[in-house]
């Protein structure tokens, strides 16, 4: 599957970055640019389990376009940046496309997988797992 334009553009942005400091700065910036969820939505039901910091994820379905729209947030900057990346990868795609999409090679290409502690990546995995479950339920 060809990568969507927004994912390719994200990969291109990272390709210019050097050491981990620049990558982290960029991830943190992506998090800062991600619109925060209103406090009313930061409830237990929207919390992603298995993250050391708090992560929230909400899903809506656009029936006309047959796409799932994800929004997310975190109270930690680095994790919020990772949420932004995950949303770039998965949001506004059809349930079928989502179930076919493997985020791991993309995260590897971003040079982030190795920088994530196991607990953090578990959180990321939990987030992706939740997105995949939502998509499967729509198939």
């Amino acid at each position, binding site marked *: 599957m060809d990568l969507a334009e927004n994912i390719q553009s994200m990969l291109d942005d990272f390709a210019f970055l050097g050491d981990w400091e620049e990558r982290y700065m960029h991830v943190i910036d992506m998090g800062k640019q991600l619109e925060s969820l209103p406090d009313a939505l930061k409830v237990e039901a929207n919390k992603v389990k298995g993250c050391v910091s708090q992560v929230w994820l909400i899903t809506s379905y656009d029936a006309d376009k047959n796409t799932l729209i994800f929004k997310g947030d975190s109270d930690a*900057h680095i994790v919020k940046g990772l949420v932004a990346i995950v949303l770039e990868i998965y949001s506004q795609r059809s349930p079928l496309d989502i179930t076919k999409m493997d985020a791991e090679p993309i995260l590897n290409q971003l040079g982030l997988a190795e*920088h994530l502690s196991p607990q953090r990546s578990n959180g990321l995995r939990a987030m992706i797992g939740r997105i995949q479950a939502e998509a499967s339920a729509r198939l």
Partner: protein
Amino acid sequence: MGFNVEDIRAQFPILSRKINDKPLAYLDNAASAQKPLAVINALKDQMGTSFANVHRGLHTMANETTEAYEGARTKVAKFLGAPKPDNIVFTRGATEALNLAAYGLAHTIEAGDEIILSQMEHHSNIVPWHFLRERKGAVLKFVPVLDNGELDLDALKSMLSSKTKIVSLVHMSNVLGTINPIADIAPWVKAVGAVFVVDGTQAAVHMPINVVDLGVDFFCMTGHKLYGPTGIGALYGNAEMLEILLPFNGGGEMIEDVFESHVTYNDPPHKFEAGTPPILEAIGLGAAIDWYSQFDPKDVHQHEMAVYYHALDGLRDINSFKLIGDAPNKGSVLSFNLEGAHAHDVAQILDKYGIAVRAGQHCTQPLMTRLGIHSTARASFGIYNTLDEAERLVAGVKKAAHFLS
């Protein structure tokens, strides 16, 4: 013996490790400390030269291992200033020691009896008492923590009454570093006839302990924060209290005789040590105490606080830096937050510079709630930390503040 931090560091093989291509600065000692060669070799030697199960053995190695195991009990007793080795029950750690105290005292509690804890307790000194609330109808009361991280002693005094059956307090806070005046509190607790339990997990590592002078009934400690192995700790109990305490593990070793109709029990401390104990871990703890006891506790304290204040002075230059816990009497625990940043972010960035700190709630949710914060980053200094490491921490936190601002 004189105090030379470079000589001490040379005895910890792990400290020469690189993390992310940077020299390791291990500042997570309040969570667990690294092990000197004396401890590593004690475990190796015991396993390599003489090992068997302890007690009632009739062969040479069983006797040797029993001597080493019981020798470790004697060392713990001496280290804590306990009158006799029999005052020391080996446990898996401080958590199990606190659970044993709570479980073993449950039969003395009736509905409505009060148990006094504080807002700065670790969950391991809260949850076992919640069991008594759930199962026995005990009422838990929490002594407030003042804004600077001190215990509100006036509040504690006013909470004590004839309804108070148990007071269980931390000696040194794992988050705030606050050292509570246990010896001053003990007579107040005795005056209402309550049992005084002290969580000495951090205190035992950072100051000389004498349980008799402190006037406590129970004192809990753990080995792995004292440069010893994991899986071993101790509950000190005075002789009278160990007679009242009921065991919570049944099995071999803890009995005198077993019949179909009833059981008679061994004497303390063996009554509380069912099954094969953590033999090697106990011997390792004994080795850690031997190793640690070569230093003057005053030298250790002075050194750790010099590193603490060196770090604190540098960190105070950072605008967004906020110290959590500023009690006048405190140990070398430096909890902090950067305004607008999450402690997890700070810890993760520090790790990239080879600096190990902890971030989160540190198993103290009621304290976080009291302070109105979600988490802290925590640097905790031990015997082998250096002024240079304090400077690296400051530089790393400055970087993190820059990234996260």
